[in-house]
């Protein structure tokens, strides 16, 4: 009898819980549906670190002026500087045509991919040619796919050779406008290191990451080499490319001008060595270095400047073009209002305010010679000039896959565990297999 009673009690209890749960759930959804519609909320993803809270300030400005269209920005997570995580999160949202995220924050290398898959709204009529002319051309180019434009550039990244102006001036050395030749540069660095024994030569982030490939691109293109030839065949393992990789490997292994931790450390390490420690003569990086050099913890305030990267004999220097752009989600419930937000954030006034406030480097050409900006960021003209001798990573839909195949080979070469020829031959073979494209016989 006791058995039957407790069993029945148990079943009633379970049944009761289920009924309560269902009723509560139904009631909740009904309540949500009858709530009066509030202001439209636009959701945007931004970088995890917001220098001088410029994004925060701009959002406040917009929200104050637009009580019916509120902007909510949240920081994208990158698990320690891995651009791939940010990519994954946004691809998942785009693919699901999510209404939860309206404005995407996208790297230039994803332009072909997002365009091809329709993961961003075409902005042709909203963002006409006349408007596009004021933005850094390689970035516009990265986001133009099959005749349509899919995003508006906001942050420009151009690889540059940062240097300690104070030390170079003392030594009477000037960075040539067309850049040194690589081997010449290594020699100069080694000589300087003899005079300043506790300084590193060149701080450059060479850990196994996308950043490594940006650096590699600069060696590659400055020797006239490329991934594909004019027929679309793979030529990444031809003699000029191997030569270029050999130069990069020599920099690390033979001339030893890089701090050992830059082969494996976090993305921020080279900059920290250059700015926070003040222990590096040269530094290869994007422009955010300038902003950090002005902070309270910087040891190089007013002592640094940017110049042309070195090149191989007989070729021009190549500065890798990167940067970030805003795109609108194909599943956004309020594309028109979202566009207004994007227009606001990329307007000349907002971009100027963000730069003067110490934020990221904005991508508008007309700001370059603006006197107000020049007061706060005097380096801007010298920096932006570098894009003219720029190079880009391959603009293909499956660039991330290519990057994943490429990274281990380049990193193995730079770490000294594979010869440049073996590394590039291996990469070419894998690339050929993946893309179904032949290798050039030249």
């Amino acid at each position, binding site marked *: 009898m006791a058995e039957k009673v407790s069993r029945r009690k148990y079943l009633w209890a379970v049944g009761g819980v289920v009924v309560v749960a269902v009723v509560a759930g139904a009631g909740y959804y009904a309540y949500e549906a009858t709530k009066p519609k509030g202001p439209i909320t636009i959701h945007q993803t931004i970088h995890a670190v917001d220098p001088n809270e410029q994004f925060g300030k701009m959002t406040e400005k917009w929200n104050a002026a637009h009580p019916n269209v509120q902007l909510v920005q949240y920081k994208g997570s990158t698990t320690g500087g891995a651009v791939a995580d940010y990519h994954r999160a946004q691809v998942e949202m785009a693919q699901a045509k999510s209404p939860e995220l309206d404005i995407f924050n996208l790297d230039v290398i994803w332009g072909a991919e997002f365009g091809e898959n329709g993961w961003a709204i075409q902005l042709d009529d909203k963002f006409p040619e006349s408007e596009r002319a004021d933005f850094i051309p390689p970035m516009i180019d990265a986001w133009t796919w099959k005749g349509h434009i899919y995003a508006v550039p906001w942050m420009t990244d151009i690889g540059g050779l940062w240097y300690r102006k104070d030390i170079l001036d003392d030594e009477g050395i000037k960075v040539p406008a067309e850049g040194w030749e690589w081997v010449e540069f290594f020699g100069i660095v080694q000589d300087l290191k003899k005079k300043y024994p506790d300084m590193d030569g060149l701080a450059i982030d060479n850990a196994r990451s996308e950043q490594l490939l940006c650096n590699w691109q600069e060696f590659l293109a400055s020797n006239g080499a490329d991934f594909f030839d004019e027929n679309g065949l793979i030529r990444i393992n031809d003699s000029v490319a191997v030569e270029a990789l050999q130069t990069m490997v020599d920099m690390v292994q033979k001339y030893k001008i890089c701090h050992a*931790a830059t082969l494996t450390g976090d993305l921020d390490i080279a900059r920290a060595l250059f700015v926070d420690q003040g222990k590096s003569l040269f530094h290869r990086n994007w422009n955010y270095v300038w902003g950090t050099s002005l902070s309270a913890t910087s040891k190089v305030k007013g002592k640094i400047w940017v110049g042309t990267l070195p090149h191989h004999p007989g070729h021009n220097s190549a500065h890798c073009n990167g940067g970030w752009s805003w795109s609108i989600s194909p599943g956004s419930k309020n594309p028109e209002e979202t566009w207004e937000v994007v227009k606001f954030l990329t307007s000349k006034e907002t971009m100027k305010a963000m730069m003067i406030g110490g934020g990221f480097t904005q991508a508008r050409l007309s700001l370059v010679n603006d006197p107000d900006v020049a007061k706060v960021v005097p380096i801007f003209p010298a920096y932006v000039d570098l894009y003219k001798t720029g190079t880009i990573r391959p603009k293909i839909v499956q660039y991330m*896959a290519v990057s994943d195949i490429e990274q281990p080979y380049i990193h193995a070469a730079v770490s000294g565990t594979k010869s440049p020829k073996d590394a590039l031959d291996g990469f070419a073979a894998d690339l050929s297999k993946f893309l179904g494209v032949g290798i050039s016989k030249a």
Partner: protein
Amino acid sequence: MAKARYERVYPYLYFFPALFFAAIFVLFPALQTVYASFFYLRVNVPSPQNYMFVGFENYRILFSDQRFYNSIMNSLIYTLSSVFGIFLLSLITALVANESFRGRTIYRACILIPWAVANVVASQQWKYLYQPGFGLVNWLLYWLGLVSDPNTYNLLTHPTAAMLGLIITNVWKSAPFVALILLGGLQSIPDDFYEAAKVDGAGPWRRFRSLTLPLLVPYINIGLLFAGLVAGTVIDIVYVITQGGPGNATEVMPLYLYRVYFWSWDFGVAGAFSTFMVVFSILTMILLIRSLVKYLLKA
């Protein structure tokens, strides 16, 4: 008669909630993964070939990939070495924690610390410790005379040293959990057993080998099963510290799997890879499972 039928169904009611959750959020995606392995799917290429049935083509692609075999080798080295290291460290830790000494509570708290920190965070910290110049480990090695210049020697750029570094971090992270299990096992051995052995004249080593160790076997099995599982399927440590480098020298199976999923976005081949990994794990653990299940079902 209704009662008899009810009696048979009744035990399964106990199971129902657990099964329900597991079915939806684990079994269903698992089945989807296996199902996907027989189809072509490139998530980031709008090709007409997507969702087409391709039979074992994905498996063929996988098995002709050199990097795949490289990842298997790395996984074996990483997992087996980690499990071995975890076994040693957790056993020593549990034995130590089982003794009574001044400060035992503090010691037991210290044991729990690696377990308390999240994987990605702990890995970030260890990565920092392994760097040349400002990393503590290099200076320790220098102090021990194993490294001549702590500013230029980078252990993470040498394949073997990098793998060793990853294994040490993994051991640090997983040993506490296993030690706790073993401690529970040790605590369940009554003192009289030891007293009797001591009376019989058995020294500490003899007591350990013939008395403690055999009684601990089921606990060791469970502990190492979990440890092996974590080492074999979790990527956080490798992902953060070396990203699989130098080159691909430390790229373990789950890390390459992650890349096939979310860099190449080839869900077909990734599905085949996942299925392979499960079969592989089952086969390598089948001995351990059999003995464990036999013990658990001893009615």
